[in-house]
Structures are given as structure tokens and as C-alpha cells.
């Protein structure tokens, strides 16, 4: 695990450094910009889906889905970050007690 941590951390640092070091015209193009804007959206959406509905290799609908719905409601009410996360964990824990 340490190897992955150090490689990923080093890679993330080099990405930041490359942005500051490389002349702007080398990698800047509208196509690259648009792909880079899409990437976080797709990755985060996929992470939400898998961390809510996957249990190993099986798709399930369990208490985590209720937690995600509560997080969505907190988000719609413009709650701060910690409240959003707390809404999800408390709801999920409560659903497991039922």
C-alpha cells in the first residue's frame, strides 16, 4: 500500500508542477480543456454510483442508498460539507437498526 501511496502522491505532485512549468501553448487546446473538465465529473459520478450500489461484484440496494438520498437532501438545503456527510452516515446507521 505504501508503494501505491508514494507513487500516486508523487504523480499528483508532478502533474501540479508540470502545469506551472510547461509553456502554455504546448498542451493547451480546447479539446484537452473540455476533456479535462469532463474527467472529474465522470469520475466522481462513477465513484458515487459504485460506493453506494456495489457490494463486491454484486449490485445491491441497501441502507447506503438511503444515506445518499439524505446527503442529496442536505445538499439541496445548502448545508455545509460536514452536515451533508453526517446526514448520510446517521441515516444509514438508523436504517440498519430498523
Amino acid at each position, binding site marked *: 500500500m505504501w508503494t501505491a501511496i508514494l507513487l500516486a502522491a508523487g504523480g499528483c505532485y508532478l502533474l501540479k508542477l508540470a502545469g506551472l512549468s510547461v509553456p502554455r501553448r504546448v498542451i493547451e487546446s480546447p479539446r484537452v480543456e473540455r476533456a479535462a473538465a469532463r474527467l*472529474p465529473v465522470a469520475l466522481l459520478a462513477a465513484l458515487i454510483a459504485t*460506493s453506494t450500489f456495489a457490494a463486491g461484484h454484486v449490485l445491491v440496494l441497501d441502507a447506503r442508498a438511503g444515506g445518499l438520498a439524505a*446527503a442529496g437532501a442536505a445538499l439541496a438545503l445548502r448545508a455545509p460539507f460536514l452536515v451533508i456527510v453526517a446526514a448520510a452516515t446517521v*441515516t444509514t446507521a438508523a436504517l440498519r437498526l430498523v
Partner: protein
Amino acid sequence: MDDHSRPAVLRDALGIGVAVGAFGLSYGAIATASGFSVLQTCALSVLMFTGASQFALVGVVGAGGSAIAGAVTALLLGSRNALYGLRLSSMLRVRGARRAVAAQFVIDESTAMALARGRRGFWATGVAVFACWNVGTALGAFGGAAIADPRTFGLDAAAPAAFLALLHPRLEGRRTRVLALGAAAAALVAVPVAPAGVPVLVAAAVAIAVRD
């Protein structure tokens, strides 16, 4: 909004730092609940220092994915920092050791403040967020490590909630929302057949392949 005076910039930077510190608290708790040691959790916040990538790494590994799949996801999410750096380089004009230090501070929050408030906004926000993020991480990590079974407290639902909070401000326009739904669907379709952690990368491939 465009108050560039020193006290105003420092006050706003500190405000952002405190908000991010709270975010670090939940990262620390989620990371230890996902099986990372306190030291590993804190090392990531010092060395990687880009929240979404860190959440992704611990989220993928916590869901049973390989360390490699987690690292690749973290790197893909970190690639946006390179584009931030491109925008910032002409404003910051840093060389040598100062550039090496500035690079670590190139994140969402410092870039937003730099674009709104200039060079001082970048440095003030970078330092404030770095300090608060790492303190928050340590507190969360020790708290999370003290909990025997994270599922009892619903902590396994904390990661999706955190991802949702990160995604929400990026969901502007119908095309973006369609992309998000498509990516989520592609990942779920891949869950039964692909090794854990890989479904997220399938979604990334969809995002790169799609045409504007």
C-alpha cells in the same frame, strides 16, 4: 468580491481553510475506516494534498479495489491540477525552489482565489488550506481509528456523500448532468464483470472518448 486588500484576502483565505479543515476531518475518518493506517492517512494529506484524489484512493481501496486501481483513479482526478497550473503560471511567475513549493499548493481552492484575488490570494489560500487540511485529517484519522466497526455508524455511506458534495458544484448545464448519469451507469454495468476499482476507470474512458 474583488477586494484585493491584504486583510480581506487573508480573512477569506482563512475562511476557506476552516471549511476545508472540516472536510479533512471526514477524509481522515473515511480513510482509517477504509483500512488505511493513521500514518498512511496523514502522509497522503501532506504529500498528495489534493482532496478529491485522496477521497478516490481511499474510496476505491475501501471498496475492495486494488491499490493500483486506486492510484490510477487518484492520478486521473489530479490531472485537472495541471490545467490549473497552466492558468496560474503567468500570474505567479515563480522559478526554482519557489516554483517547487507553489506547485504543491495548486488545488481547486487556491486556483479559484488566485483568479479572483491575484497572487496574494493564491499563497494565502494555499497555506491556510494546507495547514487546516492536515490538522483536520489527523483529528479525523485518530477519531476514525477508534471506531471498531465503521458500518455500525454508517461510515461506509460517508464516502458517497463526500463525492456527491464534490460533484454538485461541477454540475452546470444539461450536457454535464447527462455525462454524470452516463458515467455512473457505465460504472455500474462494469461492476459484475470488472475487478473492483476498474468500473470507475471505465467511466473515465467514457468521459475522454465522448465527443462535444
